[in-house]
């Protein structure tokens, strides 16, 4: 078959990683970051601690620039501050990569899964992490943005010349220019669009569909990064219900876009429709 040499990144799915993001406008205080850091040590959060055996505290360097008597700018009193808290589950496959991570910075919270199984299992787990950390954040500021981003990778394990793009990506796709199907070399197609939505909560939905034909050590791969960013019309002081409403719908949006990009044969390989 034409796609016998096309291997989804994770065997029966192509997801290299998925990112769940929440953002807010007003920066967290250092004391709030310490509270979030402390969640890891709390006896009631044993499962959280087991999930993330490592915690990192990246620093932020604040450079103060003053003027001396001659009007020259001089650096002084640099302040080394806590920039965020990263809860990490190291990957057993790759040194320096995480299989799961929860990164809280001064203006965002990102949950990253690199070893994706199924949506219902992944979302259940990520939701629990977000529900754990968000109350601290929401005490003093509302959230403004939710986001979901998938990175899918398909590897072509044969001579690049034998890869027929139209066997993998659909010629009828709404998100690809025509010339990619004639190309035997590398290309990228990055497309973004904004839409105003009212349901389930009024928001602007910004979506990017970035498709890259890559080559690494002579091996071709197709990388698809689909990002969905929800900017709320009105910032929210509670997130439980919005998360439950928005994230599953963004996931379905993602499936629809991926389905629109891929040929039926490739969709079947990753059981896109179950």
């Amino acid at each position, binding site marked *: 078959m034409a796609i016998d040499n096309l291997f989804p990144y994770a065997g029966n799915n192509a997801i290299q990683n998925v990112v769940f993001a929440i953002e807010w406008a007003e920066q967290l205080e250092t004391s709030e970051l310490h509270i979030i850091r402390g969640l890891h040590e709390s006896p009631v959060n044993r499962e959280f601690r*087991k999930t993330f055996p490592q915690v990192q505290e990246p620093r932020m360097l604040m450079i103060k620039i003053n003027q001396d008597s001659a009007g020259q700018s001089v650096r002084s009193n640099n302040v080394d501050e806590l920039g965020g808290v990263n809860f990490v589950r190291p990957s*057993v496959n790759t040194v320096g990569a995480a*299989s799961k991570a929860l990164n809280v910075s001064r203006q965002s919270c990102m949950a990253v899964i690199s*070893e994706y199984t199924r949506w219902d299992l992944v979302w259940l787990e990520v939701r629990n992490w977000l529900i754990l950390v968000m109350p601290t954040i929401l005490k003093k500021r509302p959230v403004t943005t939710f986001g979901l981003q998938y990175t899918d990778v398909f590897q072509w394990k044969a001579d690049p010349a034998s890869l027929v793009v139209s066997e993998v990506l659909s010629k009828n796709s709404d998100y690809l220019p025509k010339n990619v199907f004639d190309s035997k070399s590398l290309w990228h197609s990055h497309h973004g669009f904004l839409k105003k939505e009212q349901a389930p909560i009024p928001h602007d939905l910004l979506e990017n569909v970035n498709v890259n034909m890559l080559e690494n050590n002579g091996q071709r791969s197709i990388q698809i990064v689909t990002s969905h960013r929800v900017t709320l019309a009105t910032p929210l002081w509670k997130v439980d219900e919005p998360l439950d409403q928005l994230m599953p719908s963004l996931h379905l949006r993602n499936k629809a876009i991926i389905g629109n990009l891929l040929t039926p044969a490739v969709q079947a390989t990753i059981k896109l429709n179950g």
Partner: protein
Amino acid sequence: MPANPCRDFFALNATNRDFVKGLQKTPNPVAWETLSASDHSPGPVQPGELLYRQVMHPIHVDVETRSLKPTAFDDAANKGLSVERLSHVALADIQQAGRDRAAAQRKLGVSHADRKLHAVAELSADEIRAILDENQQRGFAIFDTANCENRAHADICQVVSTRKSGRSVRSQLIEAVRSLIEE
């Protein structure tokens, strides 16, 4: 003293690192579970007992799922899968004994550098004895192979001998792990 073929077998095979093959050739090894395998033993392994297996090498653990790999219990098919009987020793003592054993082995050299108690796996005697192969034959028998230093010691032994049955019951034994208590 009445005849005890179970005790006689284990005495005869005390240094045999592949005794399970011989056990599989006996007419009815499962019937021996009611007999004591050792004079040091407090008695045969009873229904309801919990058994603990020390996991001494990270190779046997799937770190992603925090579960044991099928090969973790391969000893059951050759030299017997050593376990400790909670009815006769405290969990803390089982864990400490594992740490001490690993420390002693690490002194043997570089090749043993990774010996360390990583976890203890909890198993139920009842659930192990409920494991059947495709022909509804018992997969394992559990014997009270205590010794003079450890009266809580027991062995889980695979009693089916065909390769297909062996693979079947091995996979079920891993599924029978009730919990993995990590260090």
